[in-house]
Protein backbone atom coordinates (compact mmCIF):
# COMPACT_ATOMS: atom_id res chain seq x y z
CA UNK A 1 0.00 0.00 0.00
CA UNK A 2 1.14 3.50 -0.79
CA UNK A 3 1.76 5.74 2.21
CA UNK A 4 2.42 9.44 2.47
CA UNK A 5 3.31 9.35 6.15
CA UNK A 6 6.73 7.91 7.06
CA UNK A 7 5.29 6.12 10.08
CA UNK A 8 7.75 3.24 9.89
CA UNK A 9 10.56 5.66 10.71
CA UNK A 10 8.98 6.82 13.96
CA UNK A 11 10.68 5.70 17.12
CA UNK A 12 7.37 4.64 18.65
CA UNK A 13 6.98 2.24 15.76
CA UNK A 14 9.62 -0.16 17.11
CA UNK A 15 8.24 0.28 20.60
CA UNK A 16 4.81 -0.96 19.57
CA UNK A 17 6.31 -3.94 17.73
CA UNK A 18 8.29 -4.95 20.81
CA UNK A 19 5.33 -4.38 23.12
CA UNK A 20 3.04 -6.48 20.96
CA UNK A 21 5.69 -9.22 20.91
CA UNK A 22 5.90 -9.25 24.71
CA UNK A 23 2.13 -9.12 25.06
CA UNK A 24 1.56 -11.98 22.61
CA UNK A 25 4.30 -14.01 24.35
CA UNK A 26 2.54 -13.62 27.70
CA UNK A 27 -0.90 -14.11 26.24
CA UNK A 28 0.10 -17.35 24.51
CA UNK A 29 1.55 -18.74 27.74
CA UNK A 30 -1.47 -17.69 29.81
CA UNK A 31 -3.89 -19.06 27.23
CA UNK A 32 -1.95 -22.31 26.84
CA UNK A 33 -1.96 -22.77 30.62
CA UNK A 34 -5.67 -22.05 30.81
CA UNK A 35 -6.50 -24.40 27.96
CA UNK A 36 -4.34 -27.24 29.30
CA UNK A 37 -5.91 -26.88 32.73
CA UNK A 38 -9.33 -26.89 31.11
CA UNK A 39 -8.49 -30.15 29.37
CA UNK A 40 -7.41 -31.73 32.67
CA UNK A 41 -10.57 -30.58 34.39
CA UNK A 42 -12.61 -31.96 31.51
CA UNK A 43 -11.16 -35.41 32.02
CA UNK A 44 -11.64 -35.29 35.77
CA UNK A 45 -15.21 -34.14 35.42
CA UNK A 46 -15.89 -36.93 32.97
CA UNK A 47 -14.48 -39.52 35.37
CA UNK A 48 -16.53 -38.37 38.31
CA UNK A 49 -20.27 -38.92 38.13
CA UNK A 50 -21.23 -37.87 41.64
CA UNK A 51 -19.47 -36.06 44.41
CA UNK A 52 -19.69 -38.74 47.09
CA UNK A 53 -20.10 -42.49 47.27
CA UNK A 54 -21.69 -44.33 50.14
CA UNK A 55 -20.89 -47.97 50.77
CA UNK A 56 -23.51 -50.15 52.51
CA UNK A 57 -22.29 -53.46 53.91
CA UNK A 58 -24.49 -56.42 53.00
CA UNK A 59 -26.43 -58.36 55.65
CA UNK A 60 -24.46 -61.59 56.06
CA UNK A 61 -25.92 -64.74 54.64
CA UNK A 62 -27.21 -65.96 51.32
CA UNK A 63 -30.71 -66.27 50.04
CA UNK A 64 -33.68 -64.01 49.60
CA UNK A 65 -34.04 -63.03 53.26
CA UNK A 66 -30.56 -61.58 53.51
CA UNK A 67 -30.91 -59.85 50.19
CA UNK A 68 -34.21 -58.27 51.23
CA UNK A 69 -32.59 -57.09 54.47
CA UNK A 70 -29.74 -55.52 52.50
CA UNK A 71 -32.22 -53.83 50.16
CA UNK A 72 -33.98 -52.46 53.23
CA UNK A 73 -30.64 -51.04 54.49
CA UNK A 74 -29.99 -49.40 51.16
CA UNK A 75 -33.47 -47.86 51.16
CA UNK A 76 -32.88 -46.49 54.65
CA UNK A 77 -29.52 -45.09 53.64
CA UNK A 78 -31.07 -43.47 50.57
CA UNK A 79 -33.70 -41.75 52.72
CA UNK A 80 -31.11 -40.46 55.17
CA UNK A 81 -28.77 -39.23 52.47
CA UNK A 82 -31.56 -37.59 50.49
CA UNK A 83 -32.44 -35.56 53.59
CA UNK A 84 -28.89 -34.22 53.97
CA UNK A 85 -28.37 -30.53 53.15
CA UNK A 86 -26.98 -29.83 49.70
CA UNK A 87 -27.78 -33.20 48.22
CA UNK A 88 -29.18 -32.96 44.72
CA UNK A 89 -29.83 -36.62 44.05
CA UNK A 90 -28.94 -40.08 45.30
CA UNK A 91 -29.02 -43.30 43.37
CA UNK A 92 -28.21 -46.86 44.31
CA UNK A 93 -26.10 -48.63 41.75
CA UNK A 94 -27.98 -51.58 40.22
CA UNK A 95 -26.78 -55.17 40.46
CA UNK A 96 -25.51 -55.09 36.89
CA UNK A 97 -23.47 -51.96 37.55
CA UNK A 98 -21.93 -53.50 40.65
CA UNK A 99 -21.10 -56.64 38.76
CA UNK A 100 -19.48 -54.59 36.03
CA UNK A 101 -17.34 -52.84 38.64
CA UNK A 102 -16.09 -56.04 40.22
CA UNK A 103 -15.79 -58.17 37.09
CA UNK A 104 -12.24 -57.07 36.26
CA UNK A 105 -10.99 -58.51 39.53
CA UNK A 106 -13.17 -61.49 40.22
CA UNK A 107 -14.20 -62.52 36.72
CA UNK A 108 -17.63 -63.08 35.28
CA UNK A 109 -19.82 -65.94 36.24
CA UNK A 110 -22.33 -67.42 38.57
CA UNK A 111 -20.12 -66.84 41.57
CA UNK A 112 -20.93 -63.16 41.62
CA UNK A 113 -24.61 -63.91 41.96
CA UNK A 114 -23.98 -65.64 45.24
CA UNK A 115 -21.45 -63.25 46.79
CA UNK A 116 -22.78 -60.90 49.46
CA UNK A 117 -21.65 -57.70 47.77
CA UNK A 118 -21.62 -54.28 49.40
CA UNK A 119 -23.97 -51.86 47.73
CA UNK A 120 -22.85 -48.50 46.41
CA UNK A 121 -24.86 -45.28 46.42
CA UNK A 122 -23.91 -42.43 44.11
CA UNK A 123 -24.57 -39.03 45.70
CA UNK A 124 -24.67 -35.89 43.57
CA UNK A 125 -24.42 -32.62 45.44
CA UNK A 126 -25.85 -29.32 44.26
CA UNK A 127 -22.89 -27.48 42.71
CA UNK A 128 -23.46 -24.42 44.88
CA UNK A 129 -23.51 -26.54 48.02
CA UNK A 130 -20.23 -28.37 47.34
CA UNK A 131 -17.95 -25.89 49.17
CA UNK A 132 -20.01 -26.09 52.37
CA UNK A 133 -20.54 -29.83 52.49
CA UNK A 134 -19.29 -31.41 55.69
CA UNK A 135 -18.67 -35.06 54.82
CA UNK A 136 -17.94 -35.96 58.45
CA UNK A 137 -21.45 -34.93 59.53
CA UNK A 138 -22.96 -36.76 56.60
CA UNK A 139 -21.03 -39.90 57.43
CA UNK A 140 -22.19 -39.63 61.04
CA UNK A 141 -25.83 -39.44 59.99
CA UNK A 142 -25.35 -42.37 57.62
CA UNK A 143 -23.72 -44.57 60.25
CA UNK A 144 -26.50 -43.75 62.70
CA UNK A 145 -29.05 -45.08 60.21
CA UNK A 146 -27.03 -47.98 58.83
CA UNK A 147 -24.29 -49.30 61.12
CA UNK A 148 -21.10 -50.06 59.24
CA UNK A 149 -21.93 -47.84 56.27
CA UNK A 150 -19.08 -45.66 55.04
CA UNK A 151 -18.89 -42.48 53.06
CA UNK A 152 -16.13 -42.15 50.50
CA UNK A 153 -15.31 -38.46 50.31
CA UNK A 154 -12.35 -38.41 47.93
CA UNK A 155 -14.45 -37.21 45.11
CA UNK A 156 -15.67 -34.29 47.17
CA UNK A 157 -12.10 -33.11 47.45
CA UNK A 158 -11.71 -33.59 43.78
CA UNK A 159 -14.73 -31.45 43.02
CA UNK A 160 -13.32 -28.72 45.21
CA UNK A 161 -10.10 -29.00 43.30
CA UNK A 162 -12.13 -28.67 40.11
CA UNK A 163 -13.58 -25.39 41.32
CA UNK A 164 -10.11 -24.11 42.06
CA UNK A 165 -8.90 -25.24 38.65
CA UNK A 166 -11.76 -23.49 36.94
CA UNK A 167 -10.97 -20.31 38.82
CA UNK A 168 -7.34 -20.53 37.72
CA UNK A 169 -8.46 -21.17 34.14
CA UNK A 170 -10.65 -18.07 34.33
CA UNK A 171 -7.64 -16.17 35.61
CA UNK A 172 -5.78 -17.18 32.42
CA UNK A 173 -8.59 -15.74 30.32
CA UNK A 174 -8.57 -12.55 32.41
CA UNK A 175 -4.82 -12.22 31.91
CA UNK A 176 -5.30 -12.48 28.13
CA UNK A 177 -7.98 -9.78 28.24
CA UNK A 178 -5.85 -7.45 30.40
CA UNK A 179 -2.95 -7.97 28.00
CA UNK A 180 -5.24 -7.03 25.12
CA UNK A 181 -6.27 -3.84 26.91
CA UNK A 182 -2.65 -2.95 27.63
CA UNK A 183 -1.77 -3.46 23.95
CA UNK A 184 -4.63 -1.18 22.93
CA UNK A 185 -3.43 1.53 25.32
CA UNK A 186 0.10 1.29 23.91
CA UNK A 187 -1.22 1.59 20.36
CA UNK A 188 -3.38 4.57 21.31
CA UNK A 189 -0.34 6.37 22.72
CA UNK A 190 1.86 5.52 19.76
CA UNK A 191 -0.87 6.73 17.40
CA UNK A 192 -1.22 10.01 19.29
CA UNK A 193 2.55 10.46 19.08
CA UNK A 194 2.46 9.71 15.35
CA UNK A 195 -0.36 12.17 14.79
CA UNK A 196 1.58 14.87 16.62
CA UNK A 197 4.83 14.13 14.77
CA UNK A 198 3.18 14.20 11.37
CA UNK A 199 0.77 17.02 12.06
CA UNK A 200 2.27 19.26 9.33
CA UNK A 201 1.95 16.53 6.71
CA UNK A 202 -1.58 15.72 7.85
CA UNK A 203 -2.51 19.40 7.50
CA UNK A 204 -1.16 19.41 3.96
CA UNK A 205 -3.12 16.27 3.16
CA UNK A 206 -6.26 17.90 4.51
CA UNK A 207 -5.66 21.02 2.42
CA UNK A 208 -5.32 18.85 -0.64
CA UNK A 209 -8.69 17.28 0.03
CA UNK A 210 -7.80 14.11 1.92
CA UNK A 211 -10.58 12.67 4.01
CA UNK A 212 -9.85 11.53 7.55
CA UNK A 213 -10.31 7.99 6.33
CA UNK A 214 -7.38 8.37 3.92
CA UNK A 215 -5.10 9.24 6.83
CA UNK A 216 -6.63 6.68 9.19
CA UNK A 217 -6.03 3.94 6.60
CA UNK A 218 -2.31 4.66 6.59
CA UNK A 219 -2.10 4.54 10.38
CA UNK A 220 -4.19 1.36 10.47
CA UNK A 221 -2.07 -0.38 7.84
CA UNK A 222 1.06 0.56 9.72
CA UNK A 223 -0.34 -0.68 13.05
CA UNK A 224 -1.42 -3.94 11.39
CA UNK A 225 2.08 -4.49 10.08
CA UNK A 226 3.64 -3.73 13.48
CA UNK A 227 1.13 -6.03 15.15
CA UNK A 228 1.85 -8.88 12.75
CA UNK A 229 5.60 -8.49 13.18
CA UNK A 230 5.40 -8.29 16.98
CA UNK A 231 2.78 -11.01 17.14
CA UNK A 232 4.84 -13.41 15.07
CA UNK A 233 7.92 -12.67 17.20
CA UNK A 234 6.08 -13.17 20.49
CA UNK A 235 4.50 -16.40 19.26
CA UNK A 236 7.85 -17.78 18.13
CA UNK A 237 9.34 -16.95 21.54
CA UNK A 238 6.48 -18.70 23.33
CA UNK A 239 6.85 -21.97 21.40
CA UNK A 240 10.12 -23.20 23.00
CA UNK A 241 8.78 -22.27 26.43
CA UNK A 242 5.63 -24.30 25.83
CA UNK A 243 7.73 -27.21 24.54
CA UNK A 244 9.86 -27.08 27.69
CA UNK A 245 6.83 -27.13 29.95
CA UNK A 246 5.45 -29.97 27.85
CA UNK A 247 8.57 -32.05 28.53
CA UNK A 248 8.30 -31.43 32.28
CA UNK A 249 4.63 -32.40 32.29
CA UNK A 250 5.43 -35.52 30.25
CA UNK A 251 7.65 -36.80 33.07
CA UNK A 252 4.70 -36.66 35.45
CA UNK A 253 2.58 -38.96 33.30
CA UNK A 254 1.42 -42.17 34.85
CA UNK A 255 0.90 -40.55 38.21
CA UNK A 256 -2.34 -39.35 39.70
CA UNK A 257 -2.56 -36.42 37.33
CA UNK A 258 -4.43 -37.11 34.11
CA UNK A 259 -2.35 -36.45 31.02
CA UNK A 260 -1.87 -32.75 30.38
CA UNK A 261 -1.81 -31.51 26.83
CA UNK A 262 -3.24 -29.26 24.16
CA UNK A 263 -5.65 -30.40 21.48
CA UNK A 264 -5.52 -29.36 17.84
CA UNK A 265 -8.32 -26.89 18.52
CA UNK A 266 -6.27 -25.39 21.35
CA UNK A 267 -3.31 -24.90 19.02
CA UNK A 268 -5.53 -23.21 16.45
CA UNK A 269 -6.80 -20.91 19.21
CA UNK A 270 -3.25 -20.08 20.28
CA UNK A 271 -2.23 -19.38 16.68
CA UNK A 272 -5.04 -16.85 16.32
CA UNK A 273 -3.62 -14.82 19.23
CA UNK A 274 -0.91 -12.96 17.22
CA UNK A 275 -3.45 -12.23 14.50
CA UNK A 276 -5.95 -11.05 17.07
CA UNK A 277 -3.28 -8.74 18.52
CA UNK A 278 -2.51 -7.35 15.05
CA UNK A 279 -6.20 -6.85 14.35
CA UNK A 280 -6.65 -5.14 17.69
CA UNK A 281 -3.72 -2.80 16.94
CA UNK A 282 -5.18 -1.97 13.53
CA UNK A 283 -8.68 -1.20 14.76
CA UNK A 284 -7.35 0.78 17.74
CA UNK A 285 -5.10 2.91 15.52
CA UNK A 286 -7.90 3.58 13.07
CA UNK A 287 -10.40 4.63 15.73
CA UNK A 288 -7.80 6.77 17.50
CA UNK A 289 -6.97 8.66 14.28
CA UNK A 290 -10.60 9.19 13.36
CA UNK A 291 -11.46 10.41 16.85
CA UNK A 292 -8.47 12.76 17.04
CA UNK A 293 -8.94 14.21 13.56
CA UNK A 294 -12.64 14.76 14.16
CA UNK A 295 -11.65 17.16 16.94
CA UNK A 296 -9.44 19.23 14.61
CA UNK A 297 -10.92 22.50 13.40
Amino acid sequence: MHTDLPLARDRSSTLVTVLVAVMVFLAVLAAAGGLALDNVLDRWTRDVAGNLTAQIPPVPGLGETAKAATDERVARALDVLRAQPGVASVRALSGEELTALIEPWIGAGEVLEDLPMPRLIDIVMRPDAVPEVDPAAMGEALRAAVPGATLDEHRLWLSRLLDLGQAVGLLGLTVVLVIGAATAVAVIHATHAGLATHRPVIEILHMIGAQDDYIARQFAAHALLQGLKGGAGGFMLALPVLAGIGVLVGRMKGGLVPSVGLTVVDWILLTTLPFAAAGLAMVTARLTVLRTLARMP
Partner: protein
Amino acid sequence: MMREADDEGPEDGLGSGGDGAAVVRFDQVGLRYDLGPEIFRDIAFTLDAGSFHFLTGSSGAGKSSLLGLCYLALRPTRGAVTLFGRDVTRAPRTVLPRLRRRMGVVFQDFRLINHLSAMDNVALPLRVAGVPESDIRHHVPELLAWVGLADHLDARPPTLSGGQKQRVAIARAVINRPDLLLADEPTGNVDDRIATRLLHLFEELNKMGTTVLIATHNEQLVRRFPHPRLHLDAGGLTCLPPLPATDPAPAAAAGPQRPRAGQRPV
Protein backbone atom coordinates in the same frame (compact mmCIF):
# COMPACT_ATOMS: atom_id res chain seq x y z
CA MET B 1 -15.41 19.38 -17.89
CA MET B 2 -16.68 16.39 -16.01
CA ARG B 3 -18.03 17.00 -12.57
CA GLU B 4 -19.50 14.85 -9.90
CA ALA B 5 -23.12 15.61 -9.29
CA ASP B 6 -23.72 18.35 -6.79
CA ASP B 7 -25.44 17.28 -3.64
CA GLU B 8 -26.95 20.70 -3.13
CA GLY B 9 -30.53 21.93 -3.19
CA PRO B 10 -32.25 23.48 -6.18
CA GLU B 11 -30.89 26.96 -5.47
CA ASP B 12 -27.48 25.56 -6.23
CA GLY B 13 -27.53 25.35 -9.96
CA LEU B 14 -23.89 26.24 -10.12
CA GLY B 15 -21.60 24.27 -12.29
CA SER B 16 -18.20 24.83 -13.70
CA GLY B 17 -19.15 26.32 -17.03
CA GLY B 18 -18.50 29.93 -17.81
CA ASP B 19 -22.11 30.87 -17.28
CA GLY B 20 -21.23 33.62 -14.88
CA ALA B 21 -22.24 31.69 -11.76
CA ALA B 22 -20.33 32.59 -8.60
CA VAL B 23 -17.53 30.22 -7.61
CA VAL B 24 -16.51 32.33 -4.64
CA ARG B 25 -18.68 34.90 -2.93
CA PHE B 26 -17.84 36.92 0.17
CA ASP B 27 -20.66 38.79 1.93
CA GLN B 28 -19.61 41.40 4.47
CA VAL B 29 -16.82 39.14 5.70
CA GLY B 30 -14.91 40.09 8.80
CA LEU B 31 -11.96 38.22 10.25
CA ARG B 32 -10.06 38.47 13.45
CA TYR B 33 -7.51 36.18 15.05
CA ASP B 34 -8.58 35.31 18.56
CA LEU B 35 -9.24 38.56 20.38
CA GLY B 36 -7.02 40.71 18.18
CA PRO B 37 -8.25 43.55 16.05
CA GLU B 38 -10.36 42.79 13.03
CA ILE B 39 -8.00 42.41 10.06
CA PHE B 40 -10.84 42.41 7.49
CA ARG B 41 -13.93 44.58 7.56
CA ASP B 42 -16.99 44.04 5.41
CA ILE B 43 -15.21 42.40 2.55
CA ALA B 44 -17.57 41.65 -0.33
CA PHE B 45 -16.68 40.32 -3.75
CA THR B 46 -17.66 37.63 -6.20
CA LEU B 47 -15.50 35.48 -8.43
CA ASP B 48 -17.61 34.35 -11.37
CA ALA B 49 -16.89 30.97 -12.91
CA GLY B 50 -14.17 31.30 -15.50
CA SER B 51 -12.89 34.63 -14.23
CA PHE B 52 -9.24 35.59 -13.67
CA HIS B 53 -8.28 38.02 -10.91
CA PHE B 54 -5.13 39.26 -9.30
CA LEU B 55 -5.16 39.87 -5.58
CA THR B 56 -2.90 42.79 -4.80
CA GLY B 57 -1.97 44.74 -1.74
CA SER B 58 1.12 45.57 0.17
CA SER B 59 2.94 43.03 2.25
CA GLY B 60 0.89 42.33 5.38
CA ALA B 61 -2.35 43.57 3.89
CA GLY B 62 -3.87 40.12 4.39
CA LYS B 63 -3.58 38.51 0.95
CA SER B 64 -2.71 35.13 2.44
CA SER B 65 -5.50 35.40 4.99
CA LEU B 66 -8.02 36.15 2.25
CA LEU B 67 -6.86 33.10 0.32
CA GLY B 68 -7.04 31.11 3.56
CA LEU B 69 -10.70 32.05 3.84
CA CYS B 70 -11.20 30.81 0.27
CA TYR B 71 -9.67 27.41 0.87
CA LEU B 72 -11.30 27.14 4.29
CA ALA B 73 -8.17 27.05 6.40
CA LEU B 74 -9.73 30.07 8.07
CA ARG B 75 -13.38 30.69 8.89
CA PRO B 76 -14.80 34.19 8.87
CA THR B 77 -15.70 35.66 12.23
CA ARG B 78 -18.41 37.72 10.56
CA GLY B 79 -20.32 37.59 7.30
CA ALA B 80 -20.66 34.65 4.93
CA VAL B 81 -18.42 32.81 2.50
CA THR B 82 -20.03 30.89 -0.34
CA LEU B 83 -18.05 28.37 -2.37
CA PHE B 84 -19.42 26.69 -5.48
CA GLY B 85 -22.85 27.94 -4.46
CA ARG B 86 -22.67 26.45 -1.00
CA ASP B 87 -22.58 28.52 2.17
CA VAL B 88 -19.48 27.22 3.92
CA THR B 89 -19.32 29.79 6.71
CA ARG B 90 -20.15 27.12 9.27
CA ALA B 91 -19.84 24.01 7.15
CA PRO B 92 -18.79 20.94 9.15
CA ARG B 93 -15.27 19.74 8.45
CA THR B 94 -16.56 16.56 6.84
CA VAL B 95 -17.68 18.51 3.76
CA LEU B 96 -14.33 20.24 3.33
CA PRO B 97 -12.45 17.46 1.46
CA ARG B 98 -15.03 17.41 -1.32
CA LEU B 99 -14.80 21.19 -1.74
CA ARG B 100 -11.01 21.23 -1.55
CA ARG B 101 -10.72 18.62 -4.28
CA ARG B 102 -12.30 21.13 -6.62
CA MET B 103 -9.55 23.65 -5.85
CA GLY B 104 -5.87 23.88 -6.44
CA VAL B 105 -3.85 25.93 -4.00
CA VAL B 106 -0.29 27.18 -4.44
CA PHE B 107 0.94 28.09 -0.97
CA GLN B 108 3.45 30.82 -0.47
CA ASP B 109 5.64 28.42 1.50
CA PHE B 110 4.81 25.61 -0.98
CA ARG B 111 3.90 23.12 1.76
CA LEU B 112 5.50 20.22 -0.03
CA ILE B 113 6.03 16.96 1.82
CA ASN B 114 9.76 16.71 2.25
CA HIS B 115 10.16 12.95 2.40
CA LEU B 116 8.18 12.39 -0.80
CA SER B 117 9.62 12.72 -4.28
CA ALA B 118 8.48 15.52 -6.58
CA MET B 119 6.47 12.93 -8.44
CA ASP B 120 4.68 11.72 -5.27
CA ASN B 121 4.07 15.28 -4.10
CA VAL B 122 2.35 16.16 -7.34
CA ALA B 123 0.43 12.88 -7.27
CA LEU B 124 -1.08 13.59 -3.83
CA PRO B 125 -4.30 15.29 -4.96
CA LEU B 126 -4.97 12.39 -7.32
CA ARG B 127 -4.18 9.79 -4.66
CA VAL B 128 -6.44 11.30 -2.02
CA ALA B 129 -9.19 11.39 -4.65
CA GLY B 130 -8.66 7.70 -5.40
CA VAL B 131 -7.42 8.06 -8.99
CA PRO B 132 -5.92 4.77 -10.29
CA GLU B 133 -2.12 4.51 -10.08
CA SER B 134 -1.83 3.85 -13.82
CA ASP B 135 -3.38 7.27 -14.55
CA ILE B 136 -1.12 8.88 -11.97
CA ARG B 137 2.01 7.39 -13.53
CA HIS B 138 0.87 8.72 -16.87
CA HIS B 139 -0.21 12.26 -16.01
CA VAL B 140 2.19 13.35 -13.30
CA PRO B 141 5.49 13.00 -15.22
CA GLU B 142 3.84 14.72 -18.17
CA LEU B 143 2.96 17.77 -16.11
CA LEU B 144 6.31 17.85 -14.32
CA ALA B 145 8.02 17.77 -17.72
CA TRP B 146 5.86 20.67 -18.80
CA VAL B 147 6.99 22.81 -15.86
CA GLY B 148 10.60 21.89 -16.69
CA LEU B 149 11.24 19.27 -14.02
CA ALA B 150 11.46 16.17 -16.20
CA ASP B 151 14.87 15.39 -14.72
CA HIS B 152 13.72 15.81 -11.13
CA LEU B 153 10.84 13.35 -10.84
CA ASP B 154 12.49 11.47 -7.99
CA ALA B 155 14.07 14.48 -6.30
CA ARG B 156 12.90 15.31 -2.81
CA PRO B 157 11.95 18.93 -2.12
CA PRO B 158 14.92 19.70 0.17
CA THR B 159 17.27 19.03 -2.76
CA LEU B 160 15.38 21.40 -5.07
CA SER B 161 15.92 25.12 -5.49
CA GLY B 162 13.25 27.60 -4.44
CA GLY B 163 12.06 28.02 -8.00
CA GLN B 164 11.93 24.27 -8.58
CA LYS B 165 9.94 23.76 -5.39
CA GLN B 166 7.54 26.45 -6.52
CA ARG B 167 6.98 24.67 -9.80
CA VAL B 168 6.35 21.38 -7.97
CA ALA B 169 3.81 23.21 -5.81
CA ILE B 170 2.12 24.67 -8.88
CA ALA B 171 2.06 21.29 -10.61
CA ARG B 172 0.40 19.83 -7.51
CA ALA B 173 -2.19 22.61 -7.54
CA VAL B 174 -3.19 22.11 -11.16
CA ILE B 175 -2.78 18.33 -11.58
CA ASN B 176 -6.47 17.62 -11.00
CA ARG B 177 -7.72 20.41 -13.29
CA PRO B 178 -9.33 22.36 -10.44
CA ASP B 179 -12.42 24.53 -10.84
CA LEU B 180 -10.79 27.13 -8.66
CA LEU B 181 -7.09 27.92 -8.56
CA LEU B 182 -5.75 29.97 -5.66
CA ALA B 183 -2.11 30.96 -5.80
CA ASP B 184 -0.15 32.89 -3.18
CA GLU B 185 2.83 34.65 -4.78
CA PRO B 186 3.32 31.82 -7.26
CA THR B 187 6.10 33.60 -9.09
CA GLY B 188 8.04 34.89 -6.14
CA ASN B 189 10.97 32.53 -6.52
CA VAL B 190 11.33 32.14 -10.25
CA ASP B 191 12.95 34.28 -12.87
CA ASP B 192 10.87 36.34 -15.19
CA ARG B 193 10.94 33.89 -18.06
CA ILE B 194 9.49 31.11 -15.90
CA ALA B 195 7.05 33.52 -14.23
CA THR B 196 5.65 34.37 -17.62
CA ARG B 197 5.48 30.71 -18.54
CA LEU B 198 3.59 29.89 -15.32
CA LEU B 199 1.17 32.75 -15.89
CA HIS B 200 0.53 31.33 -19.34
CA LEU B 201 -0.21 27.99 -17.72
CA PHE B 202 -2.74 29.67 -15.43
CA GLU B 203 -4.33 31.42 -18.39
CA GLU B 204 -4.46 28.12 -20.23
CA LEU B 205 -6.33 26.55 -17.31
CA ASN B 206 -8.54 29.62 -17.13
CA LYS B 207 -9.53 29.18 -20.78
CA MET B 208 -10.61 25.63 -19.96
CA GLY B 209 -12.95 26.99 -17.29
CA THR B 210 -10.87 27.27 -14.14
CA THR B 211 -11.53 30.32 -12.00
CA VAL B 212 -8.19 31.86 -11.04
CA LEU B 213 -7.19 34.13 -8.17
CA ILE B 214 -3.50 35.01 -7.87
CA ALA B 215 -2.08 36.95 -4.97
CA THR B 216 0.99 38.88 -6.03
CA HIS B 217 2.84 42.10 -5.46
CA ASN B 218 4.75 41.77 -8.71
CA GLU B 219 3.31 44.78 -10.46
CA GLN B 220 5.18 44.05 -13.63
CA LEU B 221 3.37 40.76 -13.94
CA VAL B 222 0.03 42.42 -13.25
CA ARG B 223 0.73 44.90 -16.03
CA ARG B 224 1.71 42.21 -18.51
CA PHE B 225 -1.42 40.13 -17.98
CA PRO B 226 -4.40 42.45 -18.04
CA HIS B 227 -6.84 40.96 -15.56
CA PRO B 228 -9.03 42.74 -13.03
CA ARG B 229 -7.57 43.28 -9.58
CA LEU B 230 -8.88 42.85 -6.08
CA HIS B 231 -6.91 45.26 -3.98
CA LEU B 232 -6.55 44.88 -0.21
CA ASP B 233 -5.80 47.96 1.80
CA ALA B 234 -6.33 48.72 5.49
CA GLY B 235 -8.68 45.80 6.02
CA GLY B 236 -10.93 46.69 3.09
CA LEU B 237 -11.13 45.36 -0.43
CA THR B 238 -11.67 47.29 -3.66
CA CYS B 239 -12.20 45.92 -7.13
CA LEU B 240 -9.98 47.63 -9.69
CA PRO B 241 -9.83 47.31 -13.46
CA PRO B 242 -6.77 45.77 -15.12
CA LEU B 243 -3.62 47.88 -15.01
CA PRO B 244 -2.80 49.34 -18.38
CA ALA B 245 -0.15 47.28 -20.11
CA THR B 246 3.27 48.85 -20.25
CA ASP B 247 5.83 48.49 -22.97
CA PRO B 248 5.27 44.93 -24.29
CA ALA B 249 9.01 44.27 -24.41
CA PRO B 250 10.41 45.54 -21.13
CA ALA B 251 14.14 45.78 -21.32
CA ALA B 252 14.83 45.24 -17.64
CA ALA B 253 12.39 42.41 -17.25
CA ALA B 254 14.59 40.36 -14.98
CA GLY B 255 15.25 43.25 -12.65
CA PRO B 256 13.83 43.73 -9.18
CA GLN B 257 10.19 44.48 -8.61
CA ARG B 258 8.79 47.94 -9.07
CA PRO B 259 11.51 49.07 -11.46
CA ARG B 260 8.99 51.47 -12.93
CA ALA B 261 11.37 54.35 -13.22
CA GLY B 262 14.05 52.44 -15.02
CA GLN B 263 11.64 50.68 -17.25
CA ARG B 264 10.51 53.56 -19.36
CA PRO B 265 13.00 55.23 -21.60
CA VAL B 266 13.26 58.80 -20.48
